[in-house]
């Protein structure tokens, strides 16, 4: 019997080395299932190539071509830098980004400190209020600022003769827009403090100020760097705020738009787009390094910090954070008021006429339903792709190189500003001869683009959730001869359901509010609400633009509310097995 059983083994492992040196390597045989998974991974990689790599490559090529498509090297860049009117935008963008970042981080740090390190009242409410800007498209703060500080603004006097249309408006709007992003990072950073360090400092009788400087600040320095980078990148590349309130103060994001949509100068648009990419790539790289260090910090065995009541400090921070929250609400509230007043500031009678979109033009509520449809598709399809993709990269056997490169590709979208991605999509999908050109001018390209735009955060959420799932589930099901897709569906998905829901609501809200990426690639029959708001504002109808913004906010808020309800119900239903 031994002969019969040995024969296939020899065939399998190749012939024995005649020199008798290295024994023959065993080449693991893949099961049918392994092949299916590898096929899926390859498919996902191809998807990334088509929706991310090739468009960005086309953008790069475009920047080195003349109008007739001839290669001219860096000539476009030379022309760009020779034109002071254009390079002024770089200075402008850096200026507002730096100032905006400093203010945002300062305010967000105070707020995060109040939420995590004090026992002030209303922490739950204040946390919720701070996240409200996430529900709004970025043009909304711009619109509100027109009502607050514009030519007919209530607080115009506060500007002492300065014009809100320009750097001041951009900075205020961007702070509103970027605040919750900074807050989330800083709250996380401040939550992982080690109680023991504070006890040690206390026992050494260090003053509160010294404790703050020697324990608190160093403890969250990575969080501060990371938040700073994220905020800088957000402001640097944002399109909505400067589009609405920038006036004649040009920044790079609006330059791209003007070059491409205004002057049909695609090559120069590509050049500016690449400039926009640089700081994003740098901050992305720094952020990755910082995050790696942060992880090391997190995995240390720390005793979680429990804030002690300190009446004076608690009350002070309650005042500070209430003021900040009030300002955030003021901006949102002003946009709302703007949308329900007959004729600002002359006729303050409330009206719903600005919401009567049908009366305003041919589109009516069409863009709203387009937005809903797009957001729903992005949420459903996007979540499926992201979660399956993360599962494949995390849990499949073999194909190591492919899996690693997939993971890397999933990180790239974070470094690509929406406006750059949108531009890249025009160049790639609109090119004559692209067999995929048929999706241009359809809803599909908007969905594909938006999924790509927001991929990274979702991927990281999914990977984090999957890493918390026992690594041996796949091994157990293999030993029980249960196909992997069954375990995926019956165990992995239910266990990761909270993360899956988080991903889908994140995708939905972002798809609802996004402007920058889709502004280049929407078509007449796939116009979105957020874009309609921009166009309406362009046409001078600020009140209706506000109304559209508010409809988006309301929709996002309702969905977010449904999401929380769903999560709460699910927790009740699954608390039997979910350990907290």
């Amino acid at each position: 019997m031994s002969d019969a059983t040995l024969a296939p083994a020899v065939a399998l492992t190749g012939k024995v080395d005649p020199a008798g040196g290295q024994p023959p390597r065993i080449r693991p045989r893949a099961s049918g299932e392994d092949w299916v998974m590898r096929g899926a991974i390859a498919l996902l990689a191809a998807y990334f190539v088509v929706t991310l790599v090739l468009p960005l490559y086309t953008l790069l090529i475009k920047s080195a071509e003349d109008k007739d498509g001839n290669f001219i090297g860096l000539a476009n860049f030379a022309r760009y830098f020779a034109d002071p009117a254009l390079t002024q935008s770089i200075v402008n963008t850096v200026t507002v980004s730096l100032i905006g970042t400093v203010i945002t981080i300062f305010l967000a740090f105070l707020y995060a400190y109040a939420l995590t390190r004090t026992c002030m009242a209303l922490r739950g409410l204040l946390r919720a209020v701070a996240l409200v800007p996430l529900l709004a498209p970025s043009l909304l703060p711009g619109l509100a600022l027109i009502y607050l500080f514009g030519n007919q603004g209530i607080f115009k006097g506060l500007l002492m003769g300065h014009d809100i249309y320009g750097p001041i408006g951009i900075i205020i709007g961007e702070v509103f827009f970027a605040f919750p992003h900074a807050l989330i990072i800083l709250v996380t950073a401040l939550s992982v403090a080690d109680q023991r360090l504070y006890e040690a400092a206390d026992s050494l009788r260090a003053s509160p100020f010294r404790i703050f400087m020697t324990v608190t600040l160093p403890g969250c320095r990575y969080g501060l760097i990371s938040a700073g980078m994220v905020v800088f990148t957000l402001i640097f590349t944002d399109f909505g705020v400067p589009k609405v309130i920038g006036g004649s103060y040009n920044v790079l994001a609006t330059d791209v738009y003007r070059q491409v949509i205004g002057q049909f100068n695609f090559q120069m648009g590509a050049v500016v787009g690449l400039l926009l990419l640089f700081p994003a790539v740098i901050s992305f790289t720094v952020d990755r390094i910082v995050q790696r260090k942060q992880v090391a910090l997190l995995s240390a065995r720390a005793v979680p910090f429990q804030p002690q009541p300190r009446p004076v400090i608690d009350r002070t921070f309650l005042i500070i954070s209430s003021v900040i929250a009030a300002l955030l609400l003021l901006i949102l509230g002003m946009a709302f008021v703007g949308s329900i007043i007959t004729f600002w500031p002359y006729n303050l009678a409330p009206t719903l006429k600005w919401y009567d979109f049908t009366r305003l033009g041919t589109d009516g509520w069409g863009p709203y339903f387009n937005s809903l449809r797009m957001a729903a598709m992005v949420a459903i399809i996007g979540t499926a792709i992201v979660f399956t993709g993360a599962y494949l990269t995390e849990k499949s056997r073999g194909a190591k190189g492919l899996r690693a490169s997939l993971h890397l590709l999933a990180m790239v979208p974070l470094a690509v500003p929406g406006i750059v991605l949108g531009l890249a999509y025009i160049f790639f999908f609109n090119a004559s001869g692209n067999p995929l050109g048929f999706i241009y001018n359809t809803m599909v390209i908007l969905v594909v683009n938006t999924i790509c735009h927001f991929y990274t955060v979702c991927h990281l959420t999914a990977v984090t959730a999957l890493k918390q799932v026992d690594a041996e589930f796949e091994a157990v099901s293999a030993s029980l001869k249960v196909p992997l897709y069954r375990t995926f569906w019956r165990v992995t998905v239910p266990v990761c359901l909270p993360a899956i829901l988080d991903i889908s609501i994140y995708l939905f809200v972002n798809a609802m509010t996004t402007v920058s990426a889709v502004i280049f690639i929407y078509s007449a029959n796939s116009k979105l609400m957020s874009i309609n708001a921009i166009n309406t504002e362009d046409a001078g109808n600020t009140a209706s633009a506000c109304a559209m913004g508010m409809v988006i906010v309301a929709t996002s808020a309702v969905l977010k509310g449904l999401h929380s309800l769903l999560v709460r119900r699910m927790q009740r239903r699954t608390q039997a097995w979910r350990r907290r």
Partner: protein
Amino acid sequence: MSINQGDAYLRIDHVSKSFGTFEALTNVTLEIYAGEFVCFLGPSGCGKTTLLRAIAGLDIQTSGRIFQGGRDISALPPSQRDFGIVFQSYALFPNLSVADNVAYGLVSTRRPKAEVEGRVRELLTLVGLGGQEQKFPSQLSGGQQQRVALARALAMSPGLLLLDEPLSALDARVRQHLRSELKELQRKLKVTTIMVTHDQEEALAIADRIVVMNHGVIEQVGTPLDIYRHPGSAFVADFVGHMNFLPVERVAADRVRFGSFEFTAPVNGNQDATATLCVRPEDIQIRNVIPGQDNSLKATIDHMEFLGSFCRAELVVNGGRHLKADFSINAMRDLSLEPGQEILIALPADRLRLFRGDAHV
């Protein structure tokens, strides 16, 4: 070509496994017989889990072959092998009830529902968890979870049961209790079982044979008694049970010198001029030692440690060398032993082992 596979159910043939440049297993060869309970024992990082995972096909070896029931499984994916496995984490599906966990593999074989239910009940009764079918894993204690994992691993009646430190997450009492239950269950089912552990006491108590591993190689394979009585190397001698090591010089084929003392020592292969003599604390004789008796020597009691059923004394011999010796409470009382006292002890020649001189000091 004729290769004698004997009656081995599982044959591991020159298996090596590298992670990059690091070799976690080097040329491991081992045979395991049907119905045997084998323990892989060794310090942390010695490659026990690596070997177990190679057998399961979860991390396939770099080279070498593995045969199970005469079938070459060297390169097969885990789904094409025949084994049940219990991990240290148990890897129970948290969202499925105990019954669904155990039935997990049965259901996809498309057996009739009633048959599956019957089998699940039978398995749960077998592991002493009857009546807990509808609970979720998080509602069970660690020991109960371990039993569910065991029932699930046994559900498909695998030919081979693999256990990776299944008891190490439990506290000492539960652990002892479960380990005897596990042994009993295995004897009843006669399923060939491999258990990984780094707890030598556990291995001695439960295994039919122990495979002692160190640095990715097998140091010794044998029955618990064999391993304990006749350790094949100083490493095994030290790792399994307690052991005294004395540096000695050889004076004749079967005689060694330790300071001013000369002993008759076994001839167990080692013929170097200098060697290490090993003796277990409990083998040191204290009663009825006559002066001048072979292998006797004087010792001073440095201090004593009371360990319940016996007493461990730290002895000083030959002006400075320390020896541990275990005395029964009776001996202690009869001889009224006290620290500082000088006594006569003997090292019985048939209980001594000799290893390489630099092996251990």
